[in-house]
């Protein structure tokens, strides 16, 4: 009987999808529908109002605080101006330099020569890398012909600690017998909330 009822209800439910009115056979006791198990105390409406007001204020304050912080972005030092120096900025301008055509030519020649030297350097670098690759390939091929086992050992990746950091060369050699003065490490990195 329940089966047929469920079947008929499913058919009827096509029009009203959320309807539960057909599930009459399920009964609950009035006890389960009871909201308060204990008798509620009556609160003074004035007190309740005050409480509500306080709650609302607290939330509003929090929202205001959050908005304040979200608007503030991390300052970009490069894009801000030094206020003290900016006060007399007109005093700080140098007189414009006037160059003769010879001076301009000289500068152009220097720049051209430098560019040319960098290009040569690049070509030399390229040649060096190609040679290194060629020589190593050649060496590995020869080794392969001689002994396959040794070749297989040679092409295994080596245990290199990566990233590899190489210091130097410096402008002056390390000073001999130099006693570095004692000091404390103070981290001056700025932080933002």
């Amino acid at each position, binding site marked *: 009987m329940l089966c047929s009822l469920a079947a008929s209800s499913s058919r009827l439910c096509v029009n009203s999808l959320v309807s539960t009115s057909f599930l009459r056979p399920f009964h609950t006791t009035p006890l389960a529908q009871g909201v308060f198990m204990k008798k509620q105390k009556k609160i003074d409406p004035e007190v309740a109002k005050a409480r509500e007001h306080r709650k609302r204020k607290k939330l509003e304050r929090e929202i205001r605080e959050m908005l304040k912080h979200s608007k503030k972005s991390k300052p970009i030092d490069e894009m801000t101006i030094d206020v003290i120096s900016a006060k007399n900025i007109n005093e700080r301008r140098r007189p414009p330099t006037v160059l003769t055509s010879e001076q301009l030519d000289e500068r152009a020649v220097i720049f051209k020569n430098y560019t040319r030297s960098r290009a040569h350097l690049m070509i030399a670098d390229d040649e060096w890398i190609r040679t290194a690759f060629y020589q190593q390939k050649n060496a590995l091929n020869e080794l392969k012909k001689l002994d396959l086992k*040794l070749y297989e*050992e040679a092409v295994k990746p080596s245990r290199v600690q990566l990233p590899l950091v190489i210091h130097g060369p410096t402008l002056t050699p390390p000073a001999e017998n130099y006693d570095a003065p004692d000091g404390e490490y103070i981290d001056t990195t700025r932080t933002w909330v």
Partner: protein
Amino acid sequence: MRLTGLIRSVAATETAKKTAQEGLKWDIFTSVIVMRPAVIAPPMIEVEQKYAESALQQEFEGSLTNSFELKTKKDEELLKRRDELERQGKELSELDGQLGITNFMKLDDWVKNADELAKKFKFDNPKAFEADDVRSLSRALDRKLVLLVKQRFGDKKYESPWILPQLKYNNEASLRETAERCIGEITSGNVEVALHGNAPVAVHTHKYQGPIKSKTGTGADGAKIFFYTASLAKKAKFTTNQDEVVDFQWVTSEEFENLVINRKYRNRVKHIFYE
């Protein structure tokens, strides 16, 4: 297929190896190129020098004066005013509190301090740290140096020409191990040397001529020398094993060209000297 396999199994028991294609037997050697990288940067070439000066000048022209320069200008004016007042025989009270420590005094102090420090630690003359000795690690500080040796190869009467240190392969698991052994053989004490990679960087084929062939005792027709690179740790002390190494030098690329006779041998490792 079976033939090459046979050759390989035979070759594994000997130190001299045979290649199937050429039908020649080869001794395998491993050579280590021990490098001391440049300690200081080389001086700028003329083109670089000129460009650096020009770029600095242009940057200066486009810049604003800084506070120190402004103060210098103000000091100059004040000094001029003082001189004028002194000439007129007036009192200097109007300048009170204005002329403190002038920038000229500060600059003098700084220059003096810098000069003192430079003299003390020889900053002004890096060449003062250099040694003339070809065996010294502190020679030619701005160049890459490579170790050249005259080796005995276990024969007390023998002395090789100037070569990169080398050692015959002796059934080690890999050529890198032979290279490590080679470093151990030519040095004495604790020398910090780091080998680079498992693969050789170059190979040189050397054919034995005349009586040497019978002298080696392996019946090989020549030697294949596989090169590995290694670099000396910073501040490492270097001492050689005197039983094995007759003489040694730390050479630059030009010196290498002059000291090593075999042109083919030189060409195989020339690129290592690139700076």
